[in-house]
């Protein structure tokens, strides 16, 4: 008979480690989510009294023009960002993984943007976009540069993509490099003898073998891009004329100072579900492409 009541030592250690994490997760993730849902059911303005309004906030979300615009912007941003970041970091990783001099130093340099805070990078780029690029534009007579990108309703979002990508590429590149290092050298060598070089080598051997890393990168990048906030805070504050207002920024701005705490709580709750759904979708679709090695 195996004793069922006594916890084994391993199980105790396991629980000892797990329970604090679960508690923390509950306090800082689950609880706010539930509270958010709760406020989403009210007309709370962030101060004063409030009443329950049922699911009205949730229904209103679908008719609100500003919310709709912010979804459009966020998706446009996230998709462009994910594609750009992954293409660029894959190319960088391929370069940094080949036999070149000083590649360890270069890898370090490429990782620097990741350790800088989003706001810091945002303000640095804000300075570049507002003062340096227009100055260069004026000096060289290039019209496109002489007005700040940030001031244009058409181009401001591109500026945010540039800053977001500059930061996001670092992590993705590192993940791709570690992925590339999992491909055994002799498989490439077999490919070389079979006549697989250049693009074919990449398409037939490299890409299928790093597919798990592509999945991680696409999911992480998409999720981060969907939640874009710091860059907008630092660069445009959602402007000009709300053309770069992301969902997170709208929630923060109108929730905190716009008297829409209840409404934006509902927005945040729905947004959470959207992100989870997108991530799950990506993982299922890409997971089926991952080779079962």
């Amino acid at each position, binding site marked *: 008979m195996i004793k069922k009541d006594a916890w084994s030592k391993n199980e105790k250690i396991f629980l000892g480690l797990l329970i604090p994490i679960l508690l923390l997760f509950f306090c800082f993730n689950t609880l706010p989510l539930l509270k958010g849902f709760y406020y989403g059911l009210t007309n709370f303005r962030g101060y004063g009294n409030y009443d329950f309004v049922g699911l009205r906030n949730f229904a209103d979300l679908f008719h609100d023009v500003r919310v709709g615009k912010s979804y459009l912007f966020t998706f446009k941003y996230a998709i462009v960002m994910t594609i750009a970041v992954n293409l660029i970091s894959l190319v960088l990783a391929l370069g940094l993984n080949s036999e070149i001099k000083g590649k360890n130093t270069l890898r370090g340099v490429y990782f620097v943007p990741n350790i800088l805070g989003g706001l810091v990078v945002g303000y640095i780029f804000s300075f570049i976009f507002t003062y340096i690029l227009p100055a260069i534009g004026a000096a060289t007579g290039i019209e496109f540069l002489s007005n700040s990108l940030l001031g244009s309703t058409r181009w401001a979002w591109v500026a945010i993509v540039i800053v977001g990508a500059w930061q996001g590429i670092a992590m993705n590149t590192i993940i791709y490099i570690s992925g590339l290092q999992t491909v*055994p*050298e*002799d*498989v490439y*060598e*077999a*490919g*070389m*003898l*079979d*006549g*697989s*070089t250049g693009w*074919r080598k990449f398409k*037939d*051997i490299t890409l*299928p*073998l790093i597919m798990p890393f592509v999945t991680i990168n696409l999911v992480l990048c998409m999720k981060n891009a969907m939640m874009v906030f710091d860059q907008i805070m630092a660069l445009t504050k959602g402007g000009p004329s709300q053309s770069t207002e992301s969902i997170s920024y709208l929630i923060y701005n109108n929730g905190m100072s716009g008297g829409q705490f209840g409404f934006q709580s509902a927005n945040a709750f729905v947004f959470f579900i959207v992100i989870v759904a997108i991530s799950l979708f990506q993982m299922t679709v890409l997971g089926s492409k991952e*080779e*079962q*090695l």
Partner: protein
Amino acid sequence: MAEIILNHIKKVYPNIEGKKKKGEPEKKSNLLVTEEGVLAVQDFNLHIKDKEFIVLVGPSGCGKSTTLRMVAGLEGISGGDLMIDGKKVNDVEPKDRDIAMVFQNYALYPHMTVRGNMEYPLKLQKMAPEEMRQRVEEAAEILGITQYLERKPKALSGGQRQRVAIGRAIVRNPKVLLMDEPLSNLDAKLRNQMRAEIIKLRQKIDATFIYVTHDQTEAMTLGDRIVIMKDGVVMQIGTPQEVFDHPANTFVAGFIGMPQMNIFDAELLEKNGTYSVKLADLEIELSPEKQQRLKANEVKAQSITLGIRPEHITLAKKAEKSLKGTIEVSEMMGSAIHLHATAYGKDTIMIIQTMNLTEEEKNSISIGKEIHFAFSGNMIHVFGKDGANLEA
């Protein structure tokens, strides 16, 4: 047709601090180091005939793989010429050399099925699907892997994977087939079985083989000719019989043959134009053949290293002129006994056929006892103190 000529081939790995070949454990071999770098292969000369089976053999780190990889084009050639069918191919891309290779760790494409793996080289040649299918199925038939064609390599055993790797190599009918220790990851039984299959395979396909191994049994059984290497230098090239009967030096003598050849310090004597060797009190006259060869080389009387293979030692009666030693270990192998003895300060192994032993003799063989043995003049190998065979 594939005739391969290696002409003064050499490989230098530049001395780059901290840069090591992947998977290569830190080891200090006796490779020559010049200011250029480490000389992994020095002055390799070999003329491989069409459809010949060449085996490169030697201890770990002697440069076998490096040589093979230079032929494949996976490693640059630092000096000398590599010719395939009369054309210098030093700088020809691997894929344009019409060479296939079987790697030690199989190097299969993990994401493709067995069929996919075998089709891939053909696909790259833009072969018609029908012909491709036929070729793959033919090769699978030869190797007995037809039932695994739709599986991924992960779902195969080591032996099956190695067959797939061989299959992928032979589907495109390469002129040259290179194999780098293809059997070293298999267990002893499977290794013997695959060795036999490689011999059979060889009858079925028209390719020139270069096969790397550190296992002398594989070398002896597979090779038309064997190249024995040490520290990047070729020690001897010859048929299995040649290298066994006439090892060029003590290294080859010790490397080829199981158990190892016994080595003694002895004297070479010359009296009236007749050579004999003197070991302790025993003087043995060499056979006429050996006399002739030594004479031809104008060998003088000198201190020598005497080599004698375990199977060429016989037990002797005390009364006879004989050598003596003390039995340390006696291994009964059935038809023969392997005796390990200490004689004249050396570990000596002798193989005694039990068939020729009387009951009394058998009983006299026990640990700690003194034993008398002898050998005849035609089985002795005479090496100079520098290790070179004086007959060669």
